[in-house]
C-alpha cells in the first residue's frame, strides 16, 4: 500500500467524496475517504498501486490530479527531511528518466525565480535523465496550500507536498470545456449543466457497455454525459418536441456526433414514464435523471384532465379509423404530483436494476419545510448519498440509491406525500412564502 495525494477541485466540495468513493467502488478498489475535509484542497489516501490511482483519476470531474506522495511538511526543511526519510529508495528508480518539475500554489503565488529556487533545492534527488519540458517520462510536483484570510494573501504556505504525478483528472484534461453547453449543437431550456451531469454519471456508476436510462431525457444532457464514460444511453420523454430537436444539425443525434460517441447512443423514445414500454427483462444497469419538478413546465403524464368530459372519446372515428389510433392523434396529458412520480421512479428502479445497480436523480426541496424523511425510500433500495446544492430559498439534492438483494430490508416511505408537501412549482412561484406552503 502506498500513500497518494489527491488535488481536489474547488467545485461542489460536498460532492467530491461521493464521486471518488463511487469511482473507486466501480473499479473494485477499496478507498477510505472518511477524513475528507470540504475546506481543504488536498487529501491523502492509501491505494495499492499506480494503476488504481489512474483508473479513479481518469474519470474524476471533481478532482484535478493524483500524485504518489514522496514527502510533506509545514516548511521546506520539513519537506526535504521527510522526502529523504521516506522516499530515498525511490530516487534510483527514476535516475535515468527524463523529467520536469511542476509547481502548484493553491491560493498563493510564486514568482518564476522563487519557483526555480525551490526546485533547485531538490537537487539531492540526483536525477540524471535530463529535463524535458515536452512529454517527459516523469513529472514531479511541488504542491503548496495557502491559507487565505479575507482579502489578505498569506506569504508563506500552510502546508507543502512533494510527489510524482500519476494521473491528471478528466477535468484537468478539459472535459468540461468539451461538454460546455454554450458549445453544444443542440440544447434547450431544460438542458442540464455539463459538470453536474458528468458528476451524476460518475456517482451513478455509468460505465463501458452499461445501459443507462434517463426517463426524463429532454435534450439528452445525461445521455451524452453517460456516453462520455462508455455507457450505452437510452432516453425517453413525454415531450416529443425536445427529442426531435430543430432539424438535422440541431438534435440529440447531432450532439453525439459532435462528441464522437454516436456508436454508444442507443435511442430515444416518446414515452410517458408511468406507462413504460421497455420489456420487463431488458437489462437497464443504471438510471440517471432530473425529474421534471415543474418549474419550467408543469409535471404531466398521459391521461384526461377531466375524465368525465373525455368519456366516450375512444369511440370517435375519423375516415373509418379510430381517432386515437391515427398517426396525428395527440394524446391528452394531465397534471401529476411529484411525490407520485418519485414513487414510480423508485419502484421502477427497484424492479428493473440489477443488484448493485444505481439510481441517481435530482430532487428540489424548499429550505423552510425540508425534513430528511421527505426523501423517498424503497425497501429494496439503499440511499447511499443525499448531496445538496444550495440556492437561496431552495436546494436541489442529488439522491443516489443502490439496489440491494432480498436480504436487505429497508422501509418504503414517502414524506412528501404523508406530510402533504405542495408541489415544488407552487412553492417556487409563491416565492417560498408562508402562504405558499
Amino acid at each position: 500500500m502506498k500513500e497518494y495525494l489527491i488535488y481536489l477541485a474547488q467545485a461542489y466540495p460536498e460532492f467530491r467524496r461521493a464521486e471518488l468513493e463511487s469511482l473507486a467502488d466501480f473499479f473494485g478498489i477499496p478507498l477510505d475517504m472518511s477524513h475528507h475535509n470540504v475546506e481543504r484542497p488536498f487529501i491523502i489516501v492509501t491505494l495499492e498501486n499506480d494503476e488504481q490511482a489512474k483508473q479513479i483519476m481518469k474519470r474524476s470531474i471533481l478532482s484535478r490530479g493524483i500524485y504518489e506522495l514522496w514527502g510533506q511538511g509545514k516548511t521546506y526543511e520539513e519537506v526535504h527531511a521527510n522526502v529523504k526519510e521516506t522516499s530515498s529508495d525511490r530516487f534510483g528508480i527514476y535516475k535515468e528518466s527524463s523529467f520536469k518539475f511542476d509547481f502548484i500554489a493553491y491560493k498563493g503565488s510564486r514568482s518564476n525565480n522563487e519557483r526555480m529556487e525551490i526546485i533547485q533545492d531538490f537537487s539531492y534527488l540526483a536525477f540524471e535523465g535530463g529535463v524535458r519540458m515536452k512529454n517527459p517520462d516523469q513529472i514531479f510536483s511541488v504542491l503548496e496550500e495557502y491559507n487565505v484570510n479575507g482579502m489578505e494573501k498569506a506569504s508563506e504556505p500552510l502546508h507543502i507536498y512533494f510527489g510524482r504525478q500519476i494521473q491528471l483528472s478528466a477535468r484537468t484534461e478539459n472535459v468540461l470545456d468539451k461538454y460546455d453547453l454554450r458549445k453544444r449543437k443542440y440544447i434547450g431550456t431544460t438542458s442540464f449543466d455539463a459538470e453536474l451531469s458528468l458528476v451524476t454519471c460518475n456517482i451513478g456508476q455509468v460505465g463501458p457497455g452499461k445501459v443507462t436510462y434517463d426517463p426524463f431525457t429532454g435534450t439528452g444532457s445525461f445521455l451524452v454525459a453517460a456516453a462520455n464514460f462508455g455507457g450505452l444511453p437510452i432516453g425517453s420523454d413525454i415531450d416529443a418536441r425536445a427529442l426531435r430537436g430543430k432539424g438535422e444539425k440541431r438534435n440529440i443525434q447531432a450532439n453525439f456526433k459532435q462528441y464522437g460517441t454516436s456508436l454508444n447512443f442507443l435511442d430515444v423514445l416518446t414515452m410517458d414514464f408511468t406507462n413504460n414500454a421497455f420489456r420487463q427483462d431488458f437489462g437497464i444497469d443504471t438510471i440517471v435523471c432530473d425529474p421534471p419538478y415543474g418549474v419550467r413546465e408543469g409535471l404531466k403524464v398521459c391521461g384526461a384532465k377531466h375524465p368525465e368530459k373525455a368519456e366516450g372519446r375512444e369511440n370517435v372515428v375519423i375516415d373509418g379509423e379510430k381517432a386515437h389510433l391515427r398517426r396525428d392523434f395527440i394524446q391528452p396529458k394531465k397534471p401529476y404530483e411529484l411525490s407520485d412520480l418519485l414513487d414510480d421512479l423508485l419502484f421502477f428502479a427497484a424492479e428493473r436494476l440489477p443488484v448493485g445497480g444505481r439510481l441517481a436523480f435530482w430532487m428540489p426541496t424548499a429550505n423552510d419545510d425540508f425534513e430528511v424523511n421527505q426523501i423517498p425510500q424503497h425497501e429494496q433500495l439503499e440511499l447511499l448519498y443525499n448531496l445538496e446544492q444550495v440556492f437561496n430559498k431552495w436546494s436541489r439534492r442529488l439522491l443516489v440509491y443502490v439496489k440491494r438483494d432480498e436480504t436487505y430490508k429497508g422501509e418504503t416511505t414517502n414524506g412528501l406525500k404523508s406530510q402533504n408537501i405542495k408541489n415544488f412549482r407552487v412553492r417556487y412561484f409563491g416565492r417560498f412564502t408562508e402562504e405558499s406552503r
Partner: protein
Amino acid sequence: MKFITTNFVKCAIKGCQSSTEAFPLKYEDCQLAQEEQEYNPEFIAHMLERLNWPAIIQVAKDLGNESLPPTKPESLDPIMEDDQAVLRDLHTLLLETQIVEGRMICRNCEHVYHIKNSIPNFLLPPHLC
C-alpha cells in the same frame, strides 16, 4: 428508431404487461433508411448478449428480411473470416437500419403505435392509461 430498439420495447398498456404476445410488436408499413455507423465488432458481440433473438428474427421478417440464422450466433470472433461476415451483417441490420416511419401493433390488444420522424411514440390515449 434503430432496428435494435425494437428488441427493447413492448406494448405500454398495463393490461398487456403479463402477455407474451405484447413483445415484440408487429411492424407494419415501415419506411426504412440506412444510416452509417462506425463498425465495431466487439460492440456488436457485446450487444448480442442482451438481445432476445427470436424477437429479432420476427421483426426482421416483418420488415422483409428472412435471412437471419434461426439461433443466436454465439461467441463470434472478429478475427475469423466467417464470423466477420456475420458481425458485418448484424451491424448493418441492428445499428444502421433506421425505421423512419411506420406502425407498431400489439399482437395482444391490437393497439397501434406510430413511429414518426424516426422516433417511436408510446404515449397512450386516456382510456388506456
